């Protein structure tokens, strides 16, 4: 889903590689995140509701009543399937076109993100299954670091170009403080 070969924009000359992905399948689920919802999710995607502020098997915890489901199959088909399984009041929406998705690769990904996000990005505080909604510069983003030298970030598509340019600028060669990547 996050292969760099399908990137629509890529900058590889900086301290870390910055890539914007082609649209990724994303479904928002707004509901009371109870056991029934978790069971329905498990049947449809193979994974249930993740713990607070975690991403597990492509399902991200956005808020106490909201999840973001990444999918490689047709989002509309997933929505129909979940809709038939969920009986409680819930909202399902295809947000694939509403969000831009980025990958950062390289030793300094934590340093690049820390330039713009007011959160503790040390490996002890932010592990490989942590998922965090915060800001990058002046815009809202969500980010996670699935592997030591790899970060993923999503934001609203309307600020996608801004975020791409921001990331490229923040990852210029010799500009990293090497705080996390020594």
């Amino acid at each position, binding site marked *: 889903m996050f292969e760099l070969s399908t990137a629509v924009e890529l900058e590889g000359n900086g301290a870390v590689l910055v890539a914007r992905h082609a649209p990724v399948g994303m479904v928002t689920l707004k509901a009371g995140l109870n056991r029934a919802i978790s069971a329905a999710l498990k049947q449809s995607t193979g994974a249930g509701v993740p713990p607070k502020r975690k991403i597990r098997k492509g399902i991200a915890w956005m808020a106490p009543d909201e999840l973001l489901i990444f999918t490689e199959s047709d989002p509309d088909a997933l929505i129909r399937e979940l809709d038939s399984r969920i009986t409680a009041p819930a909202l399902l929406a295809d947000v694939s076109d509403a969000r831009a998705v980025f990958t950062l690769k390289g030793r300094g990904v934590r340093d690049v993100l820390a330039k713009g996000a*007011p959160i503790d990005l040390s490996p002890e505080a932010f592990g490989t299954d942590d998922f*965090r909604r*915060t800001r990058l510069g002046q815009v809202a983003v969500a980010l996670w670091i699935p592997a030591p030298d790899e970060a993923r970030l999503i934001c609203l598509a309307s600020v996608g170009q801004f975020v791409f340019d921001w990331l490229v600028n923040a990852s210029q060669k010799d500009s990293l403080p090497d705080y996390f990547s020594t």
Partner: protein
Amino acid sequence: MLLLKCPYCGAKAEETEFSGGGEAHLSRQKSGSTDAGFAAYMFERRNPKGVILERWHHAYGCGKWFHAARSAVTLEVFGTYSVQALAPPKDIIAKIRARLPEWEEKK
């Protein structure tokens, strides 16, 4: 810098991830209230040098509103609590009193 913990998503962050919503626990003036009462509800806010109870919005995070009790002088945060609460919970009041024994919650 003010460090807050959102009671809904549990995230700890500094204040720029949130947006402030002003004084908490105002009681809304209903129809039939006096002009002076409504004007006070609309415009008058306490600005104590000491403990303040405020509403905050986790704007860049989970999107929920919550309450915070903090010191306007030292920026010490005594605690954050549910947006539905009409007053600070007992444990937060105890924390405030431990620091400022004189403090009274204004009604």
